């Protein structure tokens, strides 16, 4: 169901008024010609000849009916693919000819890819809904993409701890629930070993978090600091069951895990799944007091994308207040869309796990991109951590 809001209604009337004109303009092609009104009256054909759009987004990162509604509204067939690691996306982008028209990398990866010249510059005339965005978020994205030329924020997430409330109480009653010590202090990790600890398979995130736990700069790229991180990680390695970035959602929901370092929305999805399954499992999410990192995922269009107009159209659609709100309501991730706030469920808007309080927000650091040399050291450290050798 598409609800016509007061904002979209006049636009549609305008399309009907312009349709005869447009049909005269291109009588041969049966394009769906729509009009975009931005700064007066710039009119253009909004879709490509081929009504196809290839989207590459994170897994579990959109409401079920968003794509269906978009297809119905614009008559464009959407091929929707998902991934669960930034590294995979980067490799596909750098190889070129990925075939995708819209990709959603995290900003610290997007920064490198922009430098490599992978993405097309956005045509902002085709994105009138940019005005719905939160200027703070837009400014944050500009840290990675100067002048916001290539990327538009989609949603943002925090890293934190998802835990099984009753099991943690049972296995480690004395463990602090508001500190990274719950996982990084071997004293507590040892107790939680048998009910299961899972850690995100993302070297850069975990290294920032351990640095925060050790009271260091989370964006430090010094090899000495990295050694400290490794030493800390090795202490808890024997107690870690899984190092994975997507399986923990299901495992937490089923009670196969006790604690997981994960993204807020994923943990909350686990909470909701457990709630729906009525299996008595109670999942909570916390951003520890030492602070954590915040990641903005951004929508970009590869320079070699074949359906760039369709991609702009989809981007703009995702920035519709109702659509952005529906996505956040479903996946429990905060969007950077101010206009969507009034459509958000109260439970989502007021959930500090989704929209952190000002006090916690102050402790969140954006992750910066990493130099190649440091990256190699980091990956090597990560392999040693994974293998425990």
């Amino acid at each position: 169901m598409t609800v016509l809001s007061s904002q979209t209604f006049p636009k549609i009337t305008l399309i009907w008024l312009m349709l005869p004109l447009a049909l005269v303009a291109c009588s041969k092609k049966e394009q769906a010609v729509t009009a975009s009104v931005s700064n007066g009256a710039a009119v253009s054909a909004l879709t490509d000849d081929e009504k196809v759009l290839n989207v590459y987004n994170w897994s579990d990162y959109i409401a079920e009916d968003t794509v269906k509604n978009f297809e119905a509204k614009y008559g464009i067939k959407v091929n929707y693919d998902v991934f669960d690691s930034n590294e995979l996306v980067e490799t596909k982008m750098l190889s070129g000819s990925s075939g995708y028209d819209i990709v959603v990398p995290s900003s610290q990866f997007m920064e490198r890819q922009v430098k490599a010249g992978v993405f097309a510059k956005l045509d902002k005339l085709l994105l009138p809904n940019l005005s719905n965005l939160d200027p703070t978020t837009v400014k944050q994205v500009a840290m990675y993409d100067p002048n916001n030329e290539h990327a538009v924020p989609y949603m943002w997430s925090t890293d934190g701890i998802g835990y099984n409330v009753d099991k943690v109480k049972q296995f480690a009653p004395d463990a602090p629930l508001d500190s990274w010590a719950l996982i990084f202090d071997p004293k507590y990790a040892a107790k939680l070993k048998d009910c299961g600890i899972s850690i995100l398979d993302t070297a850069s995130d975990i290294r920032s978090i351990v640095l925060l736990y050790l009271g260091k700069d989370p964006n430090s790229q010094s090899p000495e600091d990295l050694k400290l991180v490794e030493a800390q990680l090795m202490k808890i390695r024997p107690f870690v069951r899984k190092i994975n970035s997507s399986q923990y959602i299901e495992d937490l929901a089923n009670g196969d895990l006790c604690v997981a370092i994960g993204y807020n929305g994923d943990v909350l999805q686990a909470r909701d799944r457990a709630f729906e399954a009525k299996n008595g499992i109670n999942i909570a999410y916390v951003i520890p007091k030492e602070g954590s990192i915040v990641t903005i995922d951004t929508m970009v269009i590869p320079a070699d994308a074949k359906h760039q107009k369709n991609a702009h159209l989809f981007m703009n659609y995702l920035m519709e207040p109702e659509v952005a709100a529906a996505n956040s309501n479903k996946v429990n991730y905060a969007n950077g869309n101010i206009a969507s706030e009034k459509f958000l469920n109260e439970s989502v808007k007021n959930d500090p796990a989704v929209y952190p309080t000002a006090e916690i927000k102050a402790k969140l650091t954006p992750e910066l991109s990493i130099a190649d040399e440091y990256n190699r050291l980091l990956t090597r450290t990560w392999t040693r951590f994974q293998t425990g050798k």
Partner: protein
Amino acid sequence: MSEPSSAQLTTSRRLRSGARGRMAVVAVPYLWLLLFFLIPFLIVLKISFSTTQLSMPPYQPLVQWTGEQLNQLRLNINPGNFLYLWQDGLYAQAFLNSIKVAAIATFITLLIGYPMAYAIARSSIKWRGVLMMMVILPFWTSFLLRVYAWIGILKNNGLLNNLLLWLGVIDEPLVILQTNFAVYLGIVYSYLPFMIMPLYATLEKMDLTLLEAANDLGCRPLRTFLTITVPLSMPGIVAGCMLVFIPAVGEFVIPSLLGPPDSLMIGKVLWTEFFNNRDWPVASAVAIALLLLLVIPIVLFQRAQARAAESE
């Protein structure tokens, strides 16, 4: 000597065109190798001597024009990638571990596959087709899906654990998924048909009168099996083991889906180089080194075997 008759001429012409036809037939597999092995190999070899840079593709071209004129070429050859493999113990360790896992898995596959192939080869002709069909049938489902299915079977509250709990065999779910056992299980399950097929082919062609003769001369069944059946099926055993061992060494999907996070296999190392380090040159160097260390000894071994078989 008289002039060659017209009949002789046509025969020689026919022979010549026959030779040409044979050439054409032989050329097809060579062309195939050239297109799908040699050219990709050369591309990988080229990348392995390059250096990473942030661009698309993410490595420096080997040959670079530095100016407008033709003579201003620069060669960027970097042998450091291979040196790096040698200096960092990770690669040797991953390689040896992969060989170990593949060898154990191949051995188990042989132990399971041999009796199956033997039974199929000795069953009535009517049944053989059906049984072989059943061996091949799993290929109709995607490999990835079949490995995923094992996750559903092995996980803590999966099929197997629930069955065992229900039967009262165990009280606590067994941790099978994400262990080395699950990796062996996955490899043996996935590659079993590759073992059975060549074994079946040799066992089925075996001359059964030899067994009768041995029996008539008073040889015990076990001895007959060890001195006649096993040596005669040797080509099948070698072929089956190769077909299982070689892909198992580079296996990535099974250890990453079913294995523990600490299983270090060369496929995983390649993935890390490629995706996490974004270092295509080192990744290519790993691939080249793997090829040299693994495929060449195997090819030599097979040659020696073929020569030994000819001289017999």
